[in-house]
C-alpha cells in the first residue's frame, strides 16, 4: 500500500550530527534561526505600533519593558536576527543565480556573511547609542 506516512519509517537523510561543520552549513542554519527571530521581531514591532496608537500611557508601558534588561536582550536579539537574515538573504540571492558554489569561494562568503551579521548589529547599536 503506497502511503506517505511517517509510521512506515522511511529512511531520513543524514542530519546535523552526521556532517562535519563548515561555514556554509553554519550560515544556512543561522539563516533559518534568524528568520524565526525576525518573525518574533514583527510582533515586537506590532506591540510598539499598537502602544503608539493606544496613547502615551500605553507607550510608557512598552518603553518600560523595552528598556528593562530582558527587553534589551530581546531587542538586541531581534536586531541581530533582522540584520543577519538580511545579509545571509543577500547571500542566497547570489547562490540562487548559480554563483558562488566553488568550495573556497563558498566558504569565504559564508564566513564573511555570518560575521557581518554580528558586526553590523554591533555597529547599529553603536550608532544608536552614540548619536
Amino acid at each position, binding site marked *: 500500500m503506497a502511503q506517505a506516512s511517517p509510521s512506515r519509517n522511511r529512511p531520513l537523510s543524514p542530519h546535523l550530527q552526521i556532517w562535519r561543520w563548515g561555514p556554509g552549513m553554519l550560515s544556512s542554519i543561522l539563516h533559518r534561526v534568524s528568520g524565526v527571530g525576525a518573525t518574533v521581531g*514583527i510582533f515586537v514591532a506590532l506591540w510598539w505600533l499598537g502602544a*503608539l*496608537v493606544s496613547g502615551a500611557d500605553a507607550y510608557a508601558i512598552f518603553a518600560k519593558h523595552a528598556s528593562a534588561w530582558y527587553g534589551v536582550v530581546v531587542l538586541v536579539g531581534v536586531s541581530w536576527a*533582522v540584520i543577519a537574515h538580511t545579509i545571509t538573504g543577500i547571500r542566497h540571492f547570489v547562490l540562487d543565480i548559480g554563483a558562488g558554489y566553488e568550495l573556497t569561494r563558498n566558504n569565504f562568503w559564508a564566513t564573511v556573511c555570518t560575521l557581518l551579521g554580528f558586526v553590523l548589529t554591533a555597529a547599529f547599536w553603536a550608532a544608536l547609542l552614540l548619536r
Partner: protein
Amino acid sequence: MGNGTSIGRVRGLGSAKAGSHHWLIIRYTAIGSLLLTVWFGVSLLLLPNFSYPAVHEWLSRPVPATLAALFVLINIWHARLGIQVVIEDYVHEDANKFASIALLNLVTFAAGAFGLFCVIRLALGGA
C-alpha cells in the same frame, strides 16, 4: 489510493505542484523586505529619540506611514512563507501539520490587519 495498478500506487506521492510558486514569492517578497528594512533601520537611526511625541510625529507623516504599512505587510507575508517551510520541515504528523498551517494563516491575517489598522489610525489622526 489504489494498490492495483502502477499509477495507482504512486499517485499523490509526487511534489505538491506549488513549490516553485512558493519559492519565487519568497524571493519577490524578500526584495521588497530588503528595501523597506533598510528604510526602517535608517529611520530608527535618524529619529532624534524614541519618545512618544518623536515617534508619533514621524509615523503620522504620509510617506513614513505609507512605507510603514508596506513594511508591516511585506514582512508578515515573507515571514508567513518562511515559517511555513519550517513547519513543513519539522512537523511530520499530517494532522499537526494541518493545524499548524491553519494557525499560521490565522496569525498572519490577524497580525496584518492589526498592523495596517494601527498605521492608518496613526496617519489619519485618530490617535
